[in-house]
């Protein structure tokens, strides 16, 4: 835009006259300027994400909610308005990454990105909430006042890049892009374990914020070295018997020691999908095996010990009707998983690792969004013998009775809107369900709750300054 306002540009335009041999230059320049403006607009949108899709979490009777610009709030569930007037409840505590923090380099915080895709984790032992920002900033917040305990960056080069400014573009190769954090954080034995977009798996001390170990093909301590051989990681690691299991977009599952990041397997890879199709979500544990779903519409049941393949989707290689983004929910040897296009599967796994009694239902958008595409990116949630599934685009919420699967019939679903018809919003992440009250973040950066599926959702918190 500076270019368009410059005197040079104005004088060039004012002197412009049509050519006899090329008479439509004005139109051409107009088209170029039009496309420039459109693409510039697209560009600014791309890089201004200030809200991710992290889910709210329950911490000692309170809900930790994330808002735009990286704000974190504590909401008392007893005081939240469930029906009636909304947004009167003020947060009990809040944290903003912006501003001065005496125990953290303020440059880190001011220049950090604000979006939070990674669902935070809580350590009851040290009363610390670990929050990871998309920019790679990780903070430890003391519960319940959300005071900043420590901060750190998953990528040591992030700080330099954040300070690079406009002229950092003028490097002749690709400039360094800081690593980003999308996958959720898991805490175990006071270690916060996470996987990054550049394929690092790292463990941070919940107490101090220091990096204990970082794996990128080799284990390092205190700092992550550039370039990882692992693919991007989009979900939280699974911790099982002192081992960290991580799915990656390169189609692999990696296995590391929780305490030092060591591995006895070359490249830590215990499993890889056919054709290296991407694994978005973490594996789930069932009967001493892991079950994991991939983008190529397949599910794999693998041996937990050595990663060998036991069976693939529905035993005979038959694939699902859609791609798998979400993880699977395991309940009493039954597996529930939903494809991105809304086909919800239920099946059982026997001790030999074979699937049986497969049934499925197709979720459909209703109401104002009837007939529109469904995109499910959140794992189903179990609450009081019903499954809750949400749609990332339309904001439909479905409640499915577990009993209904036995007949394999299309279930009586309960899609409900939240807010008025004009304010339908997507639900990009899994909701938090407590006693049939659902708390969730909408795609328009609101923290909403609903007592019952038949009620309209309302704003839970008044988070704007008055």
């Amino acid at each position, binding site marked *: 835009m500076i*270019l368009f306002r410059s005197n040079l540009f104005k004088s*060039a335009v004012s*002197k*412009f*006259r049509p*050519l*006899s*041999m*090329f*008479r*439509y*230059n004005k*139109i*051409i320049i107009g*088209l*170029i300027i*039009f*496309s*420039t403006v*459109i*693409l*510039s607009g*697209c*560009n600014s949108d*791309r890089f201004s*994400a200030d809200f991710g*899709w992290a889910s709210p979490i329950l911490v000692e009777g309170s809900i930790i909610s994330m808002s735009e610009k990286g704000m974190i709030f504590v909401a008392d569930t007893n005081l939240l308005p469930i029906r009636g007037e909304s947004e009167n409840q003020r947060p009990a505590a809040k944290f903003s990454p912006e501003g001065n923090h005496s125990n953290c380099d303020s440059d880190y915080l001011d220049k950090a990105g604000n979006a939070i*895709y990674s669902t935070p984790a809580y350590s009851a032992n040290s009363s610390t909430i670990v929050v990871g920002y998309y920019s790679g900033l990780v903070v430890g917040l003391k519960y319940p006042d959300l005071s900043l305990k420590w901060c750190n960056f998953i990528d040591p080069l992030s700080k330099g890049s954040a300070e690079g400014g406009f002229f950092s*573009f*003028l*490097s*002749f*190769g*690709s*400039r360094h*892009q800081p690593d980003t954090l*999308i996958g959720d954080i898991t805490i175990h034995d006071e270690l916060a374990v996470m996987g990054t*977009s550049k394929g690092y798996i790292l463990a941070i001390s919940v107490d101090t914020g220091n990096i204990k170990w970082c794996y990128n093909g080799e284990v390092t301590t205190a700092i992550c070295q550039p370039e990882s051989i692992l693919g*991007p990681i*989009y979900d939280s690691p699974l911790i099982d018997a002192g081992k960290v299991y991580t799915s990656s*977009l390169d189609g692999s599952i990696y296995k590391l020691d929780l305490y030092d990041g060591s591995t006895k397997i070359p490249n830590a890879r215990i499993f890889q999908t*056919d*054709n*290296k*199709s*991407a694994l978005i979500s973490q594996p789930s544990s069932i009967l001493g095996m892991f079950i994991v779903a991939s*983008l*190529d*519409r397949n599910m794999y049941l693998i041996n937990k010990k050595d990663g060998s393949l036991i069976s693939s989707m529905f035993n005979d290689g038959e*694939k699902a009707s*859609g*791609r798998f*983004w979400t993880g699977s929910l395991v309940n009493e040897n039954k597996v529930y998983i939903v494809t*991105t*296009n809304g086909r919800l599967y239920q099946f059982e796994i026997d001790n030999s690792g074979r699937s049986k009694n497969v049934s499925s239902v197709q979720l459909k958008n209703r109401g104002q969004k009837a007939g529109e*595409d469904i*995109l499910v*990116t959140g794992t189903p949630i179990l609450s009081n013998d019903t499954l809750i599934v949400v749609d*990332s685009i339309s904001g439909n919420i479905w409640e499915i009775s577990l009993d209904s699967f036995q007949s394999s019939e299309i279930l009586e679903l309960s899609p409900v809107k939240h807010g008025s018809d004009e304010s339908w919003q997507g639900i*990009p992440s899994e909701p938090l369900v407590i006693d049939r009250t659902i708390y969730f973040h909408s795609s328009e950066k609101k923290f909403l709750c609903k007592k019952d599926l038949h009620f309209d959702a309302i704003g839970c918190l008044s988070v704007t300054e008055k």
Partner: protein
Amino acid sequence: MGDLWNALIFDPMLNSLIILYTFLGNNFGLTIIVFTLIVNIIMLPLRLKQIRSTKKLAVLGPRLQAVSKKYANDSQRRGQETMRIYKEEGISPLGCLGPLVIQMPVWISLYWCIYALIPTFPENFASLTLHMYDSLEFLDTAIPLNSRFLGLDLAQPVALFALLVGGSMWVLQKMSTMESNDPRQQQTQKMMLWMMPFMFGFLCLQFPSGLSMYWMTSNLVGIAVQYFVAGWGGLSPNTNTSDSTKINSSDNKNEEIISSEEEPVNEKQYPNKREDSRRRNRNSSNRTRRKQR
């Protein structure tokens, strides 16, 4: 409108890119180059038409100038006469806009495709599954695409590509620009010659280098086509727009022949010499007519 855009432009392009990526050994850089070549082959007839139109327009320059001068105070008549000349010569004045107009949705769509295919933000990647054709199951294994090419990340801006795009666009502009006699036109041409490469170079500093690679490849194809159809054009140091140009004056029905041999070689240095030459010819013709009477 959004659905129409997706169905007609975005989805086919996105799926084509993934198919190409699969068949080209999972190399996204090569995919963009081959995709650009295909787009340019499809647009070749339009491009050829554009070059020919530009050449014809250059030849018609003096005739159009004469019309402009003659109907300087009657814009409607001037337009009619101009269009009549275009029609006579089989020139579509909008023909030169074809490749540009067609490429605009390609640019915009390619921009979105690059962001969708290379997972910078997870919501883009998740939405990608909505645009992939369900019937082509083999595409599932290709995503997300590997954005590395020759050590560069095609999802990020690269200054080197900005220079290459600006440079190749300058060469193409220079080749395709026909010399003009009018100082105002010369000034505008000069401005265009520098402004367009500068603007596109500036854009390349903002956008993924995959898009820059598309522009650069497209420019190189344009240079090659321009060379084979019209030669080096403005890049050649001894460029003459035409050896002899006939001006058809509809007023007196006389054919006036202007020989470029009478004109100085360097028209930029003596921009008014051509006008003087015409005036001399016209006076000489009038004298002849008077003698005949």
